């Protein structure tokens, strides 16, 4: 049966089965309490830790290259795959022997740095969206993922996050990824392990100003 015939049959059957259309209820505000926090940063960082995610609060963006250089010293790494965002590109990486790479992925052992549009305190979630500068695949192909978020991008819960995202974007970006920890799986012998298909580690920098 063709898709068009199926469409006709399915919709006809659904219409005959369905109750009267209740257009006034098309949207209804949740009546359950969504979590709110007096200190969202405290909640956010506490959950990040529970999700095997390292985190650091830095006073401003200029501090970032120094902090990351400290992290990279543990390996021979000196190239970062980065979102082509001014907040990153205008920083002084050279003094810390770091090169930013904005092109394609050609090495298996990559560290990727992204910027989150929104952070969700309740679940320690970083929201990364796709655009001309941000490749979605990099967030999942990376061996190690670093995500930077500005403190004022934090919201209490996912419902508020969507209100913010829907106000920021019209239409929505192709990909909106809620990232809450490094990738994991418990499919082998029921044992939880980190580093399944996506990054093995996740590190978050929270920029205060």
């Amino acid at each position, binding site marked *: *049966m063709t*898709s*068009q015939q*199926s469409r006709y049959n*399915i*919709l006809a*059957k*659904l219409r005959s*089965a*369905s*109750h*009267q259309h209740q257009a006034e209820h*098309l*949207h*209804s*505000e*949740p*009546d*359950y309490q969504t979590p709110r926090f007096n200190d969202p940063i405290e909640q956010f960082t506490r959950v990040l830790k529970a*999700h095997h995610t390292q985190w650091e609060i830095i006073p401003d963006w200029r501090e970032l290259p120094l902090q990351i250089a400290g992290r990279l010293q543990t390996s021979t790494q000196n190239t970062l795959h980065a979102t082509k965002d001014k907040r990153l590109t205008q920083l002084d990486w050279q003094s810390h022997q770091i090169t930013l790479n904005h092109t394609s992925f050609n090495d298996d052992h990559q560290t990727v740095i992204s910027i989150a549009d929104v952070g969700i305190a309740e*679940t*320690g*979630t970083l929201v990364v969206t796709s*655009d*001309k*500068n*941000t*490749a*979605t*695949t990099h*967030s*999942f*192909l990376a061996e190690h993922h670093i995500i930077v978020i500005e403190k004022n991008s934090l919201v209490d819960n*996912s*419902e508020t996050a*969507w209100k913010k995202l*829907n106000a920021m974007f019209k*239409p*929505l970006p*192709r*990909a909106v*990824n*809620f*990232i*809450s*920890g490094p*990738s*994991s*799986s418990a*499919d*082998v*012998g*029921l*044992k939880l*392990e980190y*580093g*399944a*298909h*996506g*990054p093995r580690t996740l590190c978050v920098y929270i920029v205060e100003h």
Partner: protein
Amino acid sequence: MNKVNFVERADIGLGDAPLQKNLSIFRNFSPLARAKTLARMDNVEQLRAWTKDRKNFSLDNLADLLEQFESEVTKIGGQVHWAEATGDLNQIVIDICQQQQAKKIVKGKSMVSEEAQLTHALIDAGFDTLETDLGEYIIQLAEEPPSHIIGPAIHKTFEQVVELFERHHPLGERDLPDAKAVMFEARQLLREKFLEADIGITGANYLIAESGTVGLVTNEGNGDLCSSLPKTHIVVTSIDKIVPDFDTAMAVQRLLVPSATAQDITCYTSFYTGPKRTDDADGPENFHVVLLDNKRSDILQSKYKDILRCIRCSACLNHCPIYTRTGGHAYGDVYPGPMGSVWTPLLNGLENNHDLPNACTTCNRCAEVCPMEIPLPDMLRDLRRDEQQAGLQPKRWTLGMKISMWLFRRPTLFRWTTKLTARFLKHRAMNTNAVKHLPVNNGWMEVRDFPAPEGDTFFERLKKQRK
């Protein structure tokens, strides 16, 4: 159609020592972990009520919401396809793959694709098709169906997985000493497959009508690689997954994840809307959503409509005393456990699966833990009634029920029969507290003793007490 019935398949599961080892860990761990996560939430009952109401609203307005979803997807450059039966879904996917002149396909986990046997259909049509969810990859290597809707390979022990990898991967001298090593081995091999693939296929946990967005809830990240690396992304899903808006999607999400994996949120919750935008850094050029009906529009008009609220969280499986002993393969189809015992007869016909609604102790745990308040035990009872009315019950069972009914309608005879039986069993116990042998039910008596009656029947005691 399954040649053997549930009892025969359950026997195989009960005698499978590695499976029993895994199930004993799973049935103790899973309910405790879920309870611990839910205890941290202070709004569960309100959230359940609101979400149930929103899902009912979605079902009452399915046609409008699906059309809205289709219109939004089309507006952003994607394409929505409709499949009345599973064969239609497979043909639509095969046609898209052929149009794209595709050779290699990577797949994320999707129960709808299992329902349609899509992977087999694609392989038969000549496409190199690989499951990339670690659990699905393991069972693809083992050539077995999934045994759980969230953890498809929970029936496989670590040793069995290593054995599979040794057989199928070019390991050479390398050892796989632990679960991490196995996972990294799969990661390395599958990474290459992701980069070579022409088509990525995923399922969907929910479809958001207001924006034409597909929600994908995962931990491994393979679903996101399937969605974003290949040139074409195909979403295979069913019509019952539609919700009107992001608020409802988030409410479903809040219930789904703790019920499924006892996490507060999965590592990745992704929302995909249409294909790559003109200046996007990456993403698929083609975006297709295939909506499967497969009897759901019939179920909507039936007394089993509530099952369409099911969000495939697996809480009912994880708490079922039958599922957690027999394992999922005993159910003989893709949806096991209490939800499967309702879904399978409705999707594949009661006549072929009428033993499944009988795989129930009526303990009601599934109804208690179902986040969508689906009255599973009531539905299973109704299906048993349908089975009886359709004359599908085994003759021996029908005869037994007839004899019981005849006896229950004759109170004096019933009391005499129970009195004599109690005396007989007490005599058989020979002053111990258990009967070790009985002339009937030998299978049952092989592993159990029958508790010896104390002598009096319930009615005799009641009579004495009243005196």
